């Protein structure tokens, strides 16, 4: 199977090169057969990379330790599930996953555009194929997952214990679907630049792809945060780790892009800005992959290191140089059709939101590369810790929440005084009341009060939007339920967007509460002793040890009460993995967690001795579950937004219409 995988990679490389060339020749000579052949090439590359990925999964499952990748990332005692997820545990495997997901996207783009004759489509194929060529080159010729060892060991070095977690099994896939998916809007942007079709077509064609990728990237970030929360055992979910930042940066610029394209669609403005944003977003996608895969910044995530760095840097430089050269060449066609008429308008609110998203991305970028720069200049890595990121990003985040409330309510072009009073009075009063109540109740953390008040303001704006919309439809003779149903179903993008905003409000509430009001306590206890953390009373009852195939497990039993009410027994674990292997980490903790809508009781078994004394680190994290609930709401809102409305279905029919007509040889309207 490994040979089939290797040959599949070589063939995929050749056919990607061919697709790129055929699409280019087809676009230049307007030969449809060449474009169709390039399109077939995209399907074939998908098939071949699926075969390559399947070959590697097969090798992982049958423990083919003659392959370096299998021997480095699995072992005999690893369960079948984690042997499959080892596909993305190492560098070569995750690059194969990157290329494979790209091939899926490319094939889907080809399929959905198979009957379109837009000038930019062949250039979209060229761009996707070019990216494909680079990644397949890396896995085919530089860092092959099918590289054989000189001898076949009896057992492998095993999978990092931290990766043996259900969230880590799915988090990278979500992240990659999001990450790689952003290649599609970039390809459409490049298609517009290369073909000269610089209208709004590329934005309309790539909108759903962008939203899909953005949703998965966001969910991937949340799943990663959940994994860190459960697996790393430090009580938090976000540490501004370079790898977290790597995924966060393109998410920030993609969010800005999703908002600013609305200005282009509505008012024909910000064309240059949108083009630049999608180039920057794709640059950040490549940069993120580079820093996680080149081992340039060591972090808890950067397990794999190799020498692909210079190649990757050259590719990033080429992409930036080529994209911005094309941008400069075509900037005449990217002139704005309108202009900003007031600082107080929806388009201005969107522009401010964009500037802040970009500023946040730049600040995270600088903080992330600072250690690399200092190491290059001084030979010593100076790490920029969470205080820097929090100090810079928290105020920007608060302004973004404010704009999230203002944007939907403010008028296009120019907001009048009446518009302001009419639309903002209820939300402002609600936000101010929230602040007053919180202050009255004794809350003195300034950022928390501002954050909660802004969340109340945004929630009120969303409620006002739904209420006013229903009222307008009711005036047209619909009953309230029908009005609500038609309101949202006829404008999925707008109201789906509001649902997404509500999801963000939940996340912000969760982050604010868990950051400002966390209670931490550490104690060393003998059996039968108790400790109090917040409203919880904990009694250390017992310590048990047992061995299973892969690890020695030590588990403590802790009884928990809240007041007089018994909440049951929680069991934090400390695991020692058997193999010595190459791993830096052979010890990990399994947190005991009791999660409610109000707070999380989080117990870590930090240590123990032979006498049965155990040391516990306990946290009471308020409202953390709101963060995960927010993720679910965002998924619902985004799905709702992506679902085609009746109007879009009609437009889709208009799109396939020529092919049907052509097939029948008649033209009827």
């Amino acid at each position, binding site marked *: 199977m490994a040979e089939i995988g290797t040959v599949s990679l070589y063939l995929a490389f050749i056919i990607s090169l061919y697709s790129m060339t055929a699409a280019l020749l087809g676009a230049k000579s307007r030969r*449809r057969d060449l474009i169709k052949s390039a399109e077939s090439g995209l399907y074939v590359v998908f098939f071949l990379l699926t075969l390559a990925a399947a070959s590697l999964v097969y090798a992982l499952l049958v423990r083919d330790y003659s392959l370096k990748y299998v021997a480095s990332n699995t072992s005999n005692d690893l369960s079948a599930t984690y042997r499959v997820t080892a596909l993305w545990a190492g560098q070569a495997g995750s690059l194969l996953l990157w290329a494979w997901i790209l091939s899926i996207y490319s094939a889907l783009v080809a399929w959905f555009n198979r009957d379109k004759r837009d000038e930019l489509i062949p250039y979209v194929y060229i761009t996707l194929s070019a990216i494909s060529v680079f990644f397949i080159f890396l896995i085919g010729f530089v860092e092959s997952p099918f590289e054989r060892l000189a001898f076949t060991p009896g057992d492998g070095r095993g999978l990092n214990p931290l990766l043996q977690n259900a969230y880590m099994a799915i988090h990278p896939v979500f992240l990659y679907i999001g990450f790689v998916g952003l290649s599609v809007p970039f390809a459409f942007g490049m298609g517009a630049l290369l073909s000269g079709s610089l209208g709004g077509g590329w934005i309309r064609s790539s909108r759903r792809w962008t939203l899909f990728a953005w949703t998965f990237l966001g969910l991937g970030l949340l799943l990663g945060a959940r994994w860190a929360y459960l697996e790393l055992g430090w009580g938090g979910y976000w540490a501004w780790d370079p790898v977290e930042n790597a995924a966060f940066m393109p998410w920030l610029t993609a969010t800005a892009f999703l908002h600013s394209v609305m200005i282009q669609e509505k008012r024909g403005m910000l064309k240059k800005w949108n083009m630049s944003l999608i180039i920057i977003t794709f640059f950040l996608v490549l940069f993120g992959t580079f820093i996680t895969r080149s081992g340039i910044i060591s972090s808890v995530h950067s397990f794999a290191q190799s020498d692909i760095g210079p190649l990757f840097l050259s590719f990033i430089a080429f992409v930036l140089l080529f994209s911005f050269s094309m941008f400069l060449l075509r900037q005449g066609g990217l002139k704005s059709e309108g202009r900003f008429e007031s600082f107080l308008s929806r388009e201005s609110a969107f522009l401010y939101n964009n500037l802040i998203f970009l500023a946040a991305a730049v600040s995270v970028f600088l903080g992330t590369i600072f250690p690399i720069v200092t190491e290059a200049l001084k030979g010593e890595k100076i790490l920029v810790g969470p205080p820097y990121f929090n100090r810079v990003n928290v105020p920007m985040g608060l302004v973004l929440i404010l704009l999230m409330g203002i944007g939907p309510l403010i008028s296009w072009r120019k907001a009048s005084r009446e518009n302001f009073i009419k639309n903002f009075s209820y939300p402002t009063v609600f936000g101010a009341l929230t602040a007053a109540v919180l202050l009255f109740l004794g809350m003195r953390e300034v950022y928390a009060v501002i954050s909660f008040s802004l969340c109340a303001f945004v929630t009120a704006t969303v409620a006002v939007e739904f209420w006013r919309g229903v009222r307008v439809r009711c*005036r047209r003779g619909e009953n309230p339920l029908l009005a609500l149903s038609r309101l949202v179903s006829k404008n999925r993008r707008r109201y789906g967007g509001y649902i997404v905003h509500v999801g963000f409000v939940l996340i912000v509430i969760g982050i604010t509460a868990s950051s400002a009001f966390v209670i931490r306590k550490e104690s060393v206890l003998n059996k039968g002793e108790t400790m109090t953390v917040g409203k919880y009373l904990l009694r250390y009852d017992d310590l048990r040890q047992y061995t299973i195939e892969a690890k020695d497990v030590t588990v403590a039993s802790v009884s928990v009460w809240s007041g007089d009410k018994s909440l049951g027994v929680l069991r934090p674990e400390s695991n020692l993995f058997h193999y010595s292997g190459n791993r830096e980490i052979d010890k990990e903790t399994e947190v005991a967690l009791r999660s409610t809508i109000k707070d999380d009781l989080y117990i870590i078994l930090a240590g123990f001795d032979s006498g049965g004394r155990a040391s516990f680190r306990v946290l009471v994290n308020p409202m953390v579950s709101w963060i995960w609930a927010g993720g679910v709401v965002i998924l619902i809102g985004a799905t709702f937004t992506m679902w085609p409305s009746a109007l879009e279905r009609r437009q889709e029919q208009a799109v396939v219409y020529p092919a049907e007509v052509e097939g029948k040889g008649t*033209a009827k309207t």
Partner: protein
Amino acid sequence: MIEKLIIVAIALGAGLFVALPLFRGAGGEKEKDAGNGAQSAYLDDLRKLNSKKQHLYAELKDIEFDFDMGKLSRSDYEEMERRYGAEAIAVLKEIDRLELRMTGDEAGAEIESEVAKMRGQVEEG
């Protein structure tokens, strides 16, 4: 041995699948494109115009709804409605013009075909 055979089959299959549109194109699609170039361009234009029409209709509905919800002043509403309305009318006119042209071409083609048929019958007769 079987693995090698599979590899050869995959390589041949991949090559054939990619080349197929070129073979088809030599005797069919390319020719069809050349022969039906005008119709293809017409359909493409029509598709774009229909899509633009739907987009403008949606915009007009959106503006009206925003006005009813109090997000647009009357003057802005009227100005935007005028602008989008004018654009929509221009698009509708363009669609009519295209359809007229195409219907004209089709009618011409139908007449030609009928004449050819009758000539054939006369010659056979």
